[in-house]
Each structure stands twice: as C-alpha cells, then as structure tokens.
C-alpha cells in the first residue's frame, strides 16, 4: 500500500501532492491496477491533513479515470496514467541516479542540480515549440 | 456522580478514618480509665460514707489532659469542612479541572448536589461518632461535677457537634465557591466557624430562652439542681439592684459591706458578717438555665447551625449556576 507524504513547506498544496504521489506510484509500478488506495482515515492518520484534502485528491484522480470509488469498499486503482510502462520509468530512474552520482562527484549541490534540470527542461520545451 | 465522588475522595477518606481512629482510641482508653477510677472511688466512699466529700474533679486525668482532649474533640466538627469543604469547589477552580467536570453531560447543580450531599453526610457521621464517644467519655466527669451544660461539655456531646459539622462543611464549600481559591477559603472557614462558635457558646446560648432568676437568703445559699448553665450570679441590695465592688468593698462576693456591718469584718470567721448583711436586705441571686432545658438547647443550637448551613448552601448553588466557570 502506498504511504503518502505531505510536505507543508513545499509550494504545492497538499491535495496536489497526494495526486502527484499516486500518479508517480502508478508510473513506477509501486501501485498496480486493482490495488486499493489507503482509506481517508488511514491517509489522514499518517499525514495529519484535513480529510477533505484526501477526498478532493481522490476525486481528482477519479475524474482523470485513474481510480474508482467502490461504495463501502474503498478506492481502487483503475488505470495507469498515459506513458511508458513502469519498467521504462525504473530504467530511466536508475540512469538518472547514476547521473546524479556523477554530478555530485563533480561538485554540484542539490540546488545546482535542480537549476540545471529546470534550465534543461525549459530549453527542451523551447526546442519542441520551435 | 456518586462513584465519581468516592473515586476522588478515597485518599482523604482513608486518612480521615485513620486520624479519627487515633482520637477514638485515646478517648476510649482515657474514658475507660476514668470510669474505672470513678466506680472504684464510688465503691470506696459508699463503704465508709464519705461520698459527700469526693473531690470536685476527674479522678484519673490531669486537667491538662482533659483540656487537650476537649480541644481535640471540639476541633473535629470543623476539620471536614476545612479540609474537604473549602477545596471542594475552590480546588477545582484553581486547577481548572472544573472545565473538565462541567463539560461532561452533567449540570453544575447535579455535580454540586451529589458531592455536597456525600460530604455533608460524611461530616455528620464523623462528628456524630466522635460525639457519641465523647458523651460516653464525659459520663463519669458529669456525674461528679454536673458539668454537662457547661460550654466545654455541651459543645462536644450529644447532637450539637453534628450541627457544627454540617455548618462547617457548608461554610467551607460556600467560601470556596465565592472566593474561588483554597487558601482564602480555608482562612474564612476557620475564622467564620471559630467566631460563630465563640459567639454562640459565650453569649447566644445563654439567652435561647429567658433564663430563670432565683433570689435566696445569704444564710441559705442556693445552688440549682443538676447540670445547669450559669448566666450570672451575685448579690443584690435591699433595693433589688445587683451590687458590685465599690471603694469600701470588703469583697464579700464582690459587694460592698454597709457601715453597720463593718464591725464583723475583723472576725476570723469570714461567714460572721453574713447574718448582718442579710439583716440589711442583702440577698444572693443566680440567673441560670435549668438542667431540664438541656435537650431543648441542644435542639435549638443544632437547628441554628443547620439553618445557617442551608442558607450558605443555597447561596452556593445560586452562585455556581450563575457565575462563569
């Protein structure tokens, strides 16, 4: 079962963090189709956020077609977000980990790495438009 | 709420029971000893006919011991009011636990009523038990000295201690509710109780009913029967007015000796002046409450204290409901 982490200090509102974590778990294969998401009560006991936050996140996921609520039973995974299979994600994740090790060895700190990533993403986006 | 009261007071209850047991044991031992001593003395004097000259004091206990026991026993009615009553409301207000108690599904009145009820009962039972013991204990003494109506015996025997205890408890609870802090409530309870007790036993009690006044010839002194309560006594002159010592007083019971009787004052027999005084119209008087009124007075005094207690409790209920917690 997935365990949510809500960071009060990150820019994203709590419900969005939960949505993102579910989507990422689906991409990575941590959650498979048919798995049950934590009940609102369980999620809230772990994260100490308002129950409506979790409800809102689950509703958003339901609207996207990723999960479905079965009355009286809970919320279950219905589909994966579009994209390559979990295997690809894991492979790319491993590749990224290697690159991060190399960057760290070269002397880059987290801020520099994040900055580099953002700039690269931006440049790639501009390339796509052009 | 009864269960709750017992749960909260179990330590106090145990402690009080222990202390009372100690006092009871002391009273028992000294009482038994005094009774034994009296019965022996009675047996002895009956044999040789000297009963009229039995000493005027308790045969086996020193005056200090008696005084100490009387004080301890007199304090008993006050103590529950002081140690349980004063903190009952004040303690909760000080620690804030009333915010817990008064947000359970119970009205403040119900909370107060049950606790007060049990504490009053406990105080009454305690005072009653000690009073029964003290009544038994002062038996021999009263037989000798006819002291039962006097303040230091009347106050610790029969039913008035129960009235005192109920009043002290009500005063403690009321003081705690009004003052909202335990120490000031303790002080007020102590002072209030002491003041009322002194006022009652030294003055009020003497006048519950119109006292009886008897005038007697100086040559035939009169002492009221049994355990009476003396209000005042002395000498009246021919005009019926009480005489007090003056500049020419030779101190016969504090009354001045008239000129015509001065010649008797040099006599080695102090009683020699008496017939002369009598001839001048001097009489003795004693104003007192007869022994037959003993139980009526016990009832009246208990009634006064209980009525006052009821008034104080009424105030407490009103205050508790109206005031902010």
């Amino acid at each position, binding site marked *: 079962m997935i365990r949510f982490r*809500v960071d*009060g200090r990150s820019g994203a509102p*709590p419900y969005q963090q939960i949505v993102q974590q579910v989507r990422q778990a689906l991409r990575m294969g941590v959650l498979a189709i048919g798995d049950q998401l934590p009940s*609102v*009560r369980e999620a*809230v*006991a*772990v*994260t*100490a*956020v*308002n*129950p*409506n*936050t979790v*409800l*809102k996140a689950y*509703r958003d996921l339901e609207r996207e077609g990723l999960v479905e609520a079965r009355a009286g039973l809970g919320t279950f995974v219905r589909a994966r977000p579009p994209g390559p299979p979990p295997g690809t994600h894991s492979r790319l994740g491993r590749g990224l980990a290697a690159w991060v090790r190399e960057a760290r060895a070269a002397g880059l700190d987290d801020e520099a790495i994040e900055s580099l990533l953002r700039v690269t993403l931006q440049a790639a986006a501009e390339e796509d438009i052009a | *709420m009864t*269960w*709750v009261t017992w*749960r*909260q007071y179990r*330590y106090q209850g145990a402690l009080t029971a222990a202390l009372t047991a100690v006092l009871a044991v002391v009273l028992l031992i000294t009482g038994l000893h005094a009774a034994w001593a009296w019965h022996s003395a009675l047996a002895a004097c009956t044999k040789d006919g000297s009963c009229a000259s039995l000493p005027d004091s308790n045969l086996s206990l020193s005056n200090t011991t008696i005084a100490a026991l009387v004080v301890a026993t007199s304090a008993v009615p006050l103590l529950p009011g002081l140690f349980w009553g004063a903190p009952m409301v004040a303690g909760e207000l000080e*620690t*804030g*636990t*009333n*915010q*817990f108690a*008064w*947000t*359970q*599904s*119970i*009205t*403040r009145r119900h909370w107060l009523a049950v606790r007060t009820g049990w504490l009053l009962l406990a105080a009454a039972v305690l005072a009653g038990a000690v009073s029964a013991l003290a009544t038994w204990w002062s038996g021999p003494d009263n037989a000798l000295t006819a002291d039962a109506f006097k303040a230091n015996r009347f106050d610790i025997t029969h039913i008035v201690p129960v009235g005192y205890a109920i009043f002290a408890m009500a005063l403690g609870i009321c003081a705690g509710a009004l003052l909202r802090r335990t120490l000031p409530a303790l002080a007020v309870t102590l002072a209030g109780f002491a003041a009322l007790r002194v006022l009652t036993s030294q003055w009020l009690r003497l006048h519950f009913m119109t006292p009886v006044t008897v005038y007697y010839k100086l040559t035939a002194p009169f002492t009221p029967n049994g355990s009476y309560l003396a209000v005042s006594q002395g000498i009246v002159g021919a005009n019926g007015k009480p005489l007090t010592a003056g500049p020419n007083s030779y101190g016969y019971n504090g009354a001045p000796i008239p000129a015509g009787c001065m010649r008797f004052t040099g006599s080695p027999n102090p009683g020699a002046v008496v017939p002369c005084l009598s001839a001048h119209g001097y009489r003795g008087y004693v104003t007192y409450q007869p022994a037959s009124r003993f139980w009526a007075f016990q009832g009246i005094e208990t009634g006064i204290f209980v009525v006052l207690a009821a008034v104080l409790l009424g105030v407490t209920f009103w205050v508790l*409901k109206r005031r*902010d*917690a």
Partner: protein
Amino acid sequence: MTEEGHRMTAVIETSGLTKQYRRVTALSDCTISVPEGRISALVGPNGAGKTTLLRLLAVLAAPTAGRATVLGGPPRQDPAYLAEIGFLAQEIPLYRRLTARDHIGIGAHLNPRWDGESVRERLGGLKIPLDRPVGTLSGGQRAQVALALTLAKRPRLLLLDEPLAALDPLARRNFLAALAEAAAGGDLTIVLSSHLIADIERVCDHLILLAASRVQLCGDTETLLAEHRVLTGPRKDTTAIARTHAIVREDTTARQTTLLVKLNGPVIDPAWAVEEANLEEIVLGYMSQDDAGHGAGPADARLSAIGGDR
C-alpha cells in the same frame, strides 16, 4: 460554493457576541459561522478573545450581549447540550492524582454516550500507560489522554483551546493526526485555536481570525485562498487598484510596492505581478490592519468572507 462533502449547515452561528468584564472587553461584536464537518482554525494573538469565544460556546461562561446558536440552540447548561460538545482547555485540566483509567470511569458515569474502549485502544496504540497518575505523564501524553477522553463522549462539536501550545513537534503531529482521523467520519466539527497558523493549517479547512477581540476573517480556507492575491510591482500609486479591489495590506519600500488584496474581479494592470497568497500571509495581513489603517476594514472582509451561504 459547494462541493461534495462540503456541507453548509452551520454548526456554530453567532451574532454580535460580546463578553465584557468590569474593565476589559474580552470579545466584541463577534459574528461568525462554522459549517458542519469543518476543522476550523481559530487564530489570533494572545489576548485576542479566542479562549473567551470557546468558553462561551462551551457554556462555561455567559455572554454579556449578542446571540449564539450552536447545534440548533443557544449554549445552555443542560446535559443534552453538554453531551454534544467536547471541550479541552489549554491547561489540559485532568485530575492529576487520578489515572487515565479513573478518568475513563468518570466519563462513563457522567455521559450517556461513552466509548471507553476507544480510549483504551487509542492510548494503547500510543503506548500511554493507563494506570499511572496522569500528573506523572508528559505534556504530550496528557494531551493525548485528554483528547481521547473528549472524543470518547462522541460529541458533534469539539472545541480545543490551544491544544498544541505545550507540545513538542512530534507530539503535535500525533495530536493533529488523531484529530484528523476523528474528523474523517464526517459527523464531527472541530474548532481549535492557536496563535500560530503555520502549526495547524495543514489540518484546517476553515479559518476564524480574531484580533483585538474582534473578528477579522471568517471563512473556508479554500475561499480565502481563492479570493486573495499578493500583488508586487514597482513603487506606484495604488488608487486605481483600490477602486476595484480591497487592499488588505500595503508595504512599500523605496523601489517596490507589495499589496495583499481581496479580489473583486481580475487584475488588469500588467504592471502588477500577481501571485497566490498563502494562508499565513493572509492572516498576518488582516492582523496588522489596525496598525496600518489601510485598505478594507474588518467589516468588509467579514461580510464577504463568511462561508458562502449568505
């Protein structure tokens, strides 16, 4: 605005609630509304009137003016009303010499609906001993005991006065998690006060701001966040903005003007950079209003910020 799960029946509704002592006005003209099922943050500086408001709702004190309707009637000293509310005072007043088990017994004897098993379960899960005098427990443990006892009453409204004040960060987290879990059922409305919004904003979906014994803000956090924005731009005249929107707070440096505004439509002037405000900024903005004397007064903020049900 309504959403599934966001009910709008008011559990608490007050009008002009005032509490006056001989020399001090603890609460002045307080008009708020708390819909059912909310976890409401009652924030404000010390002395703002938060404790007074909670005590009035818990019928531990009586108002000197104004009305309050809680769960369909005025707060009253009767067992039926008291059974529906739970109150936890700031000093966590438990009987220090009695054990948690004793307190469970007290609750069982004094309440019609009592779930003692839930207390034993909850404290067992937190490894808090049931048979030690509660005075010997740590602050965090006592707070959990008190919360468990208050929840065991199965109230419909929970009023908590600065419950986090004496707790360390871990204890705070556990307490908030326990609260959120209790509210997950949907039948419970919670009002908890704090003088720090940051502590409780993750668990709250409704906000009441008291400052200087008056209500400055009252409404769902979602609405408040949607209605307010932070505008930054080069230092300039703000009259144009002030004509359409309500300026809550204005800060100027030599070069820059920063505004916290309550929106009344879109911001058209491109000179202003518009960002979302976070809850703390909004709270601080309204709290500092009396000092700055700028922008919308409390009255405007209150009228349009109360729920959405007017």
